[in-house]
């Protein structure tokens, strides 16, 4: 009996496998890696859901080149040591047409080299490290560089809000350091003097001593980098200690979870990001509703970035009229596409050129505050 069942099970598996293969031949594969386990699993989940939504939308509209898109997803745990074999697998075994990273800078940088070597186009959805696109002409980025967002932060604080005495609280990783570097780079241009800078590690959730010191510094505003899980506790601890000055964050805060963690303390926090919650632009508004419907939780910057990267890839394959990597590459280079995070165009290095959205927390939700569209300030490096 047991034997019969196992033979039956084997047969089912074989049939399922074969039909899977038959299916595979009719699809165009897009490779995707993101941290689905480990410390960055929440961002991995968001970016993957965003990418899946894009694939579903493209397929519902008839797919590309008469075929359906198929998203091949692997878990890289945000580790470079995982993303390199994944990149090799996506290229060698899955034969993907385009690779997309829904992961952090470290894992993205290492995979970028592999894709460049194999001459397969590769798009980083939200990795911020400058070296990612320097891997070569096959590598693109649909989000801002950390430095560029730091520039926007300096303009926002010094120029638009008129705050001149600033304390910087920096998350000690690629993300936080490049934001701080960009901010300091442009601070003097907007008359900002930096009183002090403090560093914390991504594992920190208790900021008591930094908060005590910031209070003694008594700044006009705080420029603090972090992710929702560090920024949420940081902001609530600052407010509980009686620090009332404005707190400026970035896309790392950009999650409903930040507001949930910080509670009433989140009110009035302002961030630079790439998703405008109050947007009337149909691409963005549709994304926000469709995402919540599919994923069951509210969209964030990471989700919109995963969605954007897949949309850029699908659009390029469509315009190339082929899955030939060189043709797809040429098509990505000439991208001019309106998507959830704005209008995407790339410069010679493969860096995106788009406007920075400024959002504020009001009544427990992210809302439009302003937009920074200063092309000279936001110009990414071209080589």
């Amino acid at each position, binding site marked *: 009996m047991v034997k019969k069942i196992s033979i039956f099970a084997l047969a089912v598996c074989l049939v399922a496998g074969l039909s899977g293969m038959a299916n595979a031949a009719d699809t165009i594969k897009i490779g995707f890696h993101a941290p689905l386990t480990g410390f960055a699993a929440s961002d991995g989940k968001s970016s993957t859901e965003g990418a899946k939504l894009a694939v579903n939308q493209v397929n519902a509209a008839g797919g590309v080149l008469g075929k359906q898109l198929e998203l091949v997803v692997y878990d890289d745990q945000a580790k470079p040591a995982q993303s390199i074999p994944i990149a090799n697998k996506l290229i060698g075994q899955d034969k993907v047409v385009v690779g997309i990273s829904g992961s952090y800078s470290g894992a993205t940088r290492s995979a970028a080299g592999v894709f460049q070597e194999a001459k397969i186009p590769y798009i980083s959805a939200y990795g911020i490290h400058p070296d990612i696109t320097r891997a070569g002409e096959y590598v693109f980025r649909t989000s801002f560089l950390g430095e560029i967002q730091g520039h926007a932060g300096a303009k926002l604080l010094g120029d638009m809000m008129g705050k001149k005495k600033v304390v910087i609280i920096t998350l000690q990783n690629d993300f936080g350091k490049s934001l701080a570097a960009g901010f300091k780079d442009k601070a003097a241009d907007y008359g900002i003097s930096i009183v002090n800078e403090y560093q914390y590690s991504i594992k920190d959730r208790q900021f008591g001593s930094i908060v005590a010191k910031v209070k003694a510094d008594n700044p006009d505003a705080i420029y603090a980098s972090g992710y929702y899980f560090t920024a949420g*506790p940081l902001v609530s601890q600052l407010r*509980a200690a009686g620090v009332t000055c404005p707190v400026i964050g970035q896309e790392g805060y950009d999650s409903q*979870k930040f507001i949930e963690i910080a509670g009433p303390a989140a009110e009035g926090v302002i961030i630079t990001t790439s998703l405008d919650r109050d947007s009337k632009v149909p691409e963005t508004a549709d994304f926000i509703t469709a995402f919540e419907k599919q994923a069951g939780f509210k969209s964030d910057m990471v989700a919109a970035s995963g969605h954007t990267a897949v949309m850029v890839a699908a659009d390029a394959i469509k315009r190339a009229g082929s899955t030939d990597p060189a043709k797809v590459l040429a098509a990505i280079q000439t991208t001019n596409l309106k998507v959830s995070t704005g209008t995407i165009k790339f410069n010679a290095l493969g860096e995106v050129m788009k406007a920075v959205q400024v959002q504020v927390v009001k009544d427990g939700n992210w809302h439009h505050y302003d937009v920074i569209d200063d092309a000279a300030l936001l110009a990414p490096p071209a080589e």
Partner: protein
Amino acid sequence: MSPVFRAACERLTMLYFELLIQGLIYGSMYAIIAVGLTLVYGLLRILHVAHAGLFALGGYMGLLITNSTGSLILGMPLAAAIVGVVGMAIYRLCYQPILDQPPYVALIASIGLFIAMEEMFRLIFGPFGLTYTNAPLQSVVQFAGIYLRAVDLAIVVGSLSLLGALSWLSQKTRIGLAWRATVDDPQIAESFGISVLNVRYLNFFIGSALAAVAGVFISLLSNLVEPTMGGVPSYKALAIIVLGGLGNVAGTLIASLVLGVVEAFGTIYIGDILDRDAIAFAFLIIVLMIRPEGLFARR
């Protein structure tokens, strides 16, 4: 003394005082996490890394019960009791069968168990972490220009009184006598009619329940319970119990408080060169170079 200079001095004294208080808060948290670990080591000579998993489980249980009943008074003791029982189960199912193996076998089992627990939390409760619907103990108390949340005070008072109770239990009661006897020499203790197994169960129950209390406290501090919240305690508590002299409860308490204060000041004054989590280990290396038996080792 010029008034400007005096004002500057006052501000600095104030800052140092605030940092000292923050250090005591950090230190009390470390103490109740580390004490369970040092108890297990004292009794079984096992480095119980999965203790940090129980700490996270405590956070989850406390938050879930508090959210569904609206009462932390219910949430915290229930979380402690549940996690205490899970701690006993871990001893029975994971450690007891391999007690006759060399110590690294238990260490590997413990690390494996810890990783499995982290991923299990992620699968069951999701990767985003959970928050209190209406976080308790967040009201701000103000005295002498210092703002503290009720939870800050609760951590210091709660940890120190729990550790005081533990010390009373071990020094003044018959259970404590049996416990100390078993730590000294399990075979002789057994021949005097002490149930070594019961002592071990009790040990795991108390240690795990304390870890759960710490988990609930930390979840209240940051209003966040996440799958990886045990990550930092998993190794920092090891450094603390080595500093405190392995198996020494009083030493662990002092080491925790000292480390908390060193971290509170270190984050501000040497944060550029040394990460907060690295401070514990730099401190550990220095102490081990000078006193290889730990700060407060029993001879």
